């Protein structure tokens, strides 16, 4: 961990932490929004430099390997684009008086603390530290969900807080059990919580204890992933918080929890006698997918609609990783990246739409492509992508998930395809109402920031047409690690 002229890992942790301190002290909201964007950009650059610089050897607390680089780069990229979107969104909220200047100071500081927490969760090599980081990221989002202080926002934040805390408590118990399983083999002390040490010796751990630990970890972190039946916090938190937070919740925080589950899945896979993590994850994934697909039909709130769509897609991703094997893991990884990009782009569009129409009710929003073509078409492309139509990226990843399932467990493909089709129908049904027909609601022109949403959509489109060979090789390599 020494002898670096530039330590990228330290930078991706230090920049958000320092930015949070600065933002908490700055009074001017325009300046804080700019500082927030700059800090997010610097973090992204630091993350990209991970490809160029030498990696430090895994220490007792931090690690950089091929698996987490994917997550870190995705995280900092969406963090940066969201901060750009957030600047224009927040300016509007200030004009309409929904937020005040002190609120914003708090909001921006919390945004950077959340980025710090998520980055720390990704680079931590210590399962205790990872738990602390996930907890930190969660608490900051709870505070941001409640920022409007309305009746609904408070209920959402309270529900999120209570369910999130229970989840995190179960995850801590699972972490303690992993330590208990490791302690006779590795010895007492910090080493028994270091992931890179655990993975080498996992074969000698008590398999029964490790299995029980994984169940607690899956339930605990699974609550944060939003897997049914532990998803109840997710739609409320998405619908009632500021929209940039909905975008990072769906695009990033769910991935953080998923990453934690994957790390422990690897641990379990290294211990041959322990229960297979696959069937558990496949079951939870399928349940979430089908449940969320049906729930999509009854949504009347536009942000809730896309929140349920996030549950659906996390279900698909967990299903893919639960299937395991190089192809399904590849599909799962690709789907995760595509979903993060698409869903945050959709939330960027939805945020501006809700602002200009003054409502989140689906029935009161009509004909967006006529009244606001820029936003309307972004929404159309986003929903077409998220529903899984070709030629966009999600079609490709869903196709890979389905085809790998058909190849190995054909009977599992039936409920999978069923769920996908149900969700597809619901999304297109809602989209036609929202985007086409006679315009209804506010007609005022909008000062939207189109760059973040269209750059995400362009990436998703490009990925659907052509994936560069180095990227494919990289993903295949990571899929191989995931076993």
């Amino acid at each position, binding site marked *: 961990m020494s002898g670096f002229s530039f330590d990228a890992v330290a930078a991706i942790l230090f920049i958000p932490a320092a930015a949070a301190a600065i933002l908490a002290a700055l009074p001017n909201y325009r300046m804080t929004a700019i500082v927030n964007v700059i800090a997010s950009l610097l973090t992204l650059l630091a993350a990209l430099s991970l490809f160029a610089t030498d990696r430090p050897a895994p220490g007792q607390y931090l690690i950089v390997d091929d698996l987490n680089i994917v997550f870190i780069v995705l995280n900092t990229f969406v963090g940066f684009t969201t901060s750009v979107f957030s600047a224009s969104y927040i300016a509007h909220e200030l004009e309409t008086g929904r937020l005040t200047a002190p609120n914003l100071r708090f909001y921006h500081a919390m945004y950077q603390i959340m980025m710090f927490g998520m980055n720390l969760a990704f680079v931590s090599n*210590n399962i*205790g*530290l990872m*738990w*602390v980081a996930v*907890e930190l990221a969660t*608490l900051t989002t*709870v*505070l941001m969900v*409640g920022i409007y*202080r309305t*009746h*609904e926002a*408070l*209920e959402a*934040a*309270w529900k999120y*807080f*209570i369910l999130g*805390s*229970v989840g*995190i*408590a*179960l995850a*801590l*118990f699972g*972490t*303690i*059990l992993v*330590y*208990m399983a490791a*302690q*006779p083999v590795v010895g*007492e*002390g*910090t080493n*028994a*919580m270091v992931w890179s040490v655990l993975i080498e010796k996992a074969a000698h751990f*008590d398999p*029964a*204890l490790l*299995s*029980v630990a994984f169940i607690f970890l899956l339930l605990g972190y699974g609550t944060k992933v939003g897997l049914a039946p532990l998803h109840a916090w997710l*739609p*409320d938190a998405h*619908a*009632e918080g500021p929209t940039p937070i909905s975008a990072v919740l769906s695009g990033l925080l769910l991935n953080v929890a998923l990453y934690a589950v994957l790390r422990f899945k690897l641990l379990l896979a290294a211990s041959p006698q322990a229960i297979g993590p696959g069937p558990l994850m496949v079951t939870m994934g399928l349940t979430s997918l089908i449940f969320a697909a049906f729930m999509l039909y*009854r*949504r*009347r*709130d536009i942000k*809730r609609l896309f929140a349920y769509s996030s549950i659906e897609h996390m279900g698909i991703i967990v299903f893919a990783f639960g299937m395991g094997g190089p192809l399904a893991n590849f599909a799962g990884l690709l789907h995760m990246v595509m979903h993060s990009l698409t869903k945050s782009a959709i939330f960027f569009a939805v945020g501006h739409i809700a602002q200009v129409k003054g409502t989140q009710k689906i029935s009161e929003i009509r004909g967006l492509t006529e009244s606001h073509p820029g936003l309307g078409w972004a929404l159309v492309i986003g929903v077409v992508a998220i529903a899984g139509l070709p030629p966009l990226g999600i079609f490709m990843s869903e196709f890979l998930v389905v085809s790998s399932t058909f190849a190995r467990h054909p009977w599992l493909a039936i409920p999978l395809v069923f769920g996908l089709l149900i969700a597809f129908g619901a999304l297109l049904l809602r989209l036609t109402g929202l985007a086409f027909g006679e315009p209804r609601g506010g007609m005022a022109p909008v000062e939207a920031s189109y760059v973040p949403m269209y750059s995400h959509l362009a990436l998703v489109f490009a990925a659907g047409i052509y994936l560069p060979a180095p990227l494919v090789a990289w993903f295949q390599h990571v899929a191989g690690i995931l076993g």
Partner: protein
Amino acid sequence: MNGLTFDIAHLLAGSLVLISFMMLYQDRLFALINVFALHAVVLALSVAWQAYIQDAHHLYITAGIALVFKAIVIPVGLHRIIQRLGIHRDIETAVGIGPTMLAGIGLVTLSMVLMLRVTPEADPLAREDLAFALSIILLGLLVMVTRRNAVSQVVGFMSLENGLVLAATGAKGMPLVVEISVAFSILIAFIVIGVFLFRIRERFDSVDVGALDDYRGERR
């Protein structure tokens, strides 16, 4: 000597489970908070005893945090909040006391059967601590599920965290990082909850979470 240290640790952890049961049937907020304070005191004793028998001095800090923070500061603070809000009424339990107690017994049985079965090779002390800890966690969850009042849900959550601390201290040589983080998370959680409570009070003149249920997002 070995038998005695074991018995004392056993006694303390067992008492924690019993006190968790006592929380299930308290129907007044003040009584519930007093029982929670007792829970925290016994936890502090249990942690201190673990520190003594494991010769792990850093655990005394955890015990101190449990004693000062959870047994004194939080209960006093909650008392004041309740007085300020004027809600010393009965707790509305969502489920009756009889079924709740039966569910509690079921949960404790479940955790004993599960933990004792999967840890036959572990150190007997750690193993029983773990079984007790899981019981306390599940009972804490049960308190949270059966209460509708925000303050009592918070108390349920804190008793759940007590179970986690018991498990963490029972695991020999677990790094200090974790214990402090647990303590910190409780501190943060308390601040968060405090903020929430005041906001809820500000808006609805009630800390009954049921009042929040009016809004379902879909039905209006």
